[in-house]
């Protein structure tokens, strides 16, 4: 075998990236892996489930205008609410709304927060001051007030809500990313990148962002439940989605009103939401352990 062939033969030595290592550790963590599976189930059920049910979420079963207990034969697997609408269908559709808001708003927060944080931390100086003081300023605006103003100006709509929530959530993200970036900026590999002729945007994109992503991912899994809670809070105030569309927050709100007569309408959506939030938190914890920056 010639040297060349030997080289070809050993061609496939792959490397294990830090991400792959982390993935393995994450799946080894029982709580996190379970959380991940349950989340997947809840997500699939919310997005696909409503199409498979005999009743749609806004369809009123005129024969059962009073809240009906679970009735398999009728196709109301978890019964109906006080208006005769299928509770399971409503809960799943509500989950779809809540999860969508959670994920979209977090994505908005992620994009803005990472960009602002990385630029502020890396460029430093006046840019940093300017961006971070803006963040401070935004922090001081009360959320509800901010959302109400937006609603008044632009009317109630779904897109607006996640923009509003995202616009608030990115602040913390920006601070976290900036802190991480400051720590990274002093590392030798950043200096090496500069010596290699990398421009500032290239260095931020190639070196800073991938290296803060670990922390960001953890934060994202903790932000999604926060956003879901925020959305329910807004819905509770009547600033959220509009009937007959619904979300977990609204369902819980409705259920709370009927707590005495019909606790089922509260318990079902509350159970879904609690389990989901728990799973996100377990997943976040697991991710943090898996990505533990021992600074190798």
């Amino acid at each position, binding site marked *: 075998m010639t040297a060349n062939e030997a*080289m070809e033969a*050993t*061609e*496939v*030595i*792959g*490397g*294990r*990236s*830090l*991400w792959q290592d982390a993935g393995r550790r994450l799946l080894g963590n029982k709580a996190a892996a379970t959380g991940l599976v349950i989340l997947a189930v809840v997500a699939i059920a919310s997005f696909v489930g409503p199409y498979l049910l005999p009743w749609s979420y806004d369809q009123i079963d005129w024969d059962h205008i009073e809240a009906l207990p679970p009735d398999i034969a009728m196709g109301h697997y978890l019964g109906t609410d006080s208006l005769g609408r299928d509770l399971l269908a409503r809960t799943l559709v509500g989950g779809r709304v809540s999860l969508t808001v959670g994920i979209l708003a977090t994505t908005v927060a992620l994009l803005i927060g990472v960009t602002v944080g990385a630029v502020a931390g890396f460029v430093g100086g006046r840019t940093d001051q300017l961006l971070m003081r803006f963040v401070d300023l935004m922090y001081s605006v009360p959320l509800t007030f901010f959302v109400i103003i937006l609603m008044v100006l632009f009317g109630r709509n779904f897109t607006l809500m996640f923009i509003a929530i995202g616009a608030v959530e990115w602040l913390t993200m920006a601070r976290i990313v900036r802190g991480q970036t400051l720590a990274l900026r002093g*590392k*030798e*590999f950043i*200096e*090496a*990148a*500069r*010596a*290699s*002729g*990398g*421009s500032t945007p*290239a260095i931020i994109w*190639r*070196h800073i962002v*991938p*290296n803060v992503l670990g922390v960001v991912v953890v934060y994202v899994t903790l932000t999604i439940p926060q956003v879901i809670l925020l959305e329910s809070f807004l819905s509770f105030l009547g600033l959220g989605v509009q009937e007959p569309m619904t979300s977990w927050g609204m369902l819980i709100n409705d259920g709370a009103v009927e707590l005495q007569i019909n606790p089922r309408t509260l318990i079902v959506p509350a159970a879904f939401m609690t389990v989901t939030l728990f799973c996100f938190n377990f997943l976040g914890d697991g991710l943090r352990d898996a990505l533990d920056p021992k600074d*190798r």
Partner: protein
Amino acid sequence: MSAPLLQVKDLAVHYKVRAGGVLWGKYQSLKALDGVSFDLKAGQTLGIVGESGCGKSTLGRAILQLVPATSGTVAWLGAPPPELKALRREMQIVFQDPLASLDPRMTAGDIIAEPLRNYRKDLSREQIKAEVRKVMAQVGLLPSMINRYPHEFSGGQCQRIGIGRAIILGPKLVVCDEPVSALDVSIRAQVINLLMDLQRELGLALVFISHDLAVIRHISHRVLVLYLGKAMELAERESLYAAPRHPYTQALMAAVPIPDPEKERAKPRVIVSGDIPSPLYPPSGCVFRTRCPKATEICAQVEPPLESAGQDHMVACHHWRDGRGRD
């Protein structure tokens, strides 16, 4: 003789630091590097030696303009250096901590290829890959490890990756900032020899920074001794090691054991005690006087100029002529 590759004149780097509390402290300038000059010819090695905190790393970074120079000039091929991006193509750097200087989330191949991505946008992926493999073989890495990540390599291998990244653009000068001091003793010689081989093959000039006199002696043609940001002695290797003129150089050498017991016994004993003074408050006159065994009145008042003490041998000391009987 043509113009030297690199001509450093009176280079100074002063940092502004806040002394005494964040709120009430005032800014003071810390002279990390203060008026250092030297020439470097193509294909030659300049060794820079000194204790930690003497400004040797700052000097290396100032040459590459990774830290801004407060004053002084760096001439490249006898002319003012071209603009930054073009300059960095000609000069590269190898860092002290091999692992910290590699991005943990990039593969070895991507790390070595990074300068190419910045400078040779005309190359296709395949061409870049071929180039990386060539360089990997050159620095003694198996090209099959191209997809591995830094944490999967040993310290010595990481340093080879760092060297590969430094030479891929075909620079004329590589600054090596303590490239072996973080490595295992058994690996050091390999990396040093690799650098010397590359120097011969590629005609590289090296600025080799180290606190280790033995390593410097092995690799350098000329040696610059730094203390508190100032040049103490600058000489050809043979001349410096045979007859160190400056008390500080003598002290450094005295601290290195010589394998030959005869010579070990015969070598001059220069005892240096005490710590390096803070560069924020450097001593007046000669910066070395607080620890110098030969210090006299004049040392505290007048700063000794760097003067010629033989062919190609410069020294900054008022009393270098005294006590030469020991050479």
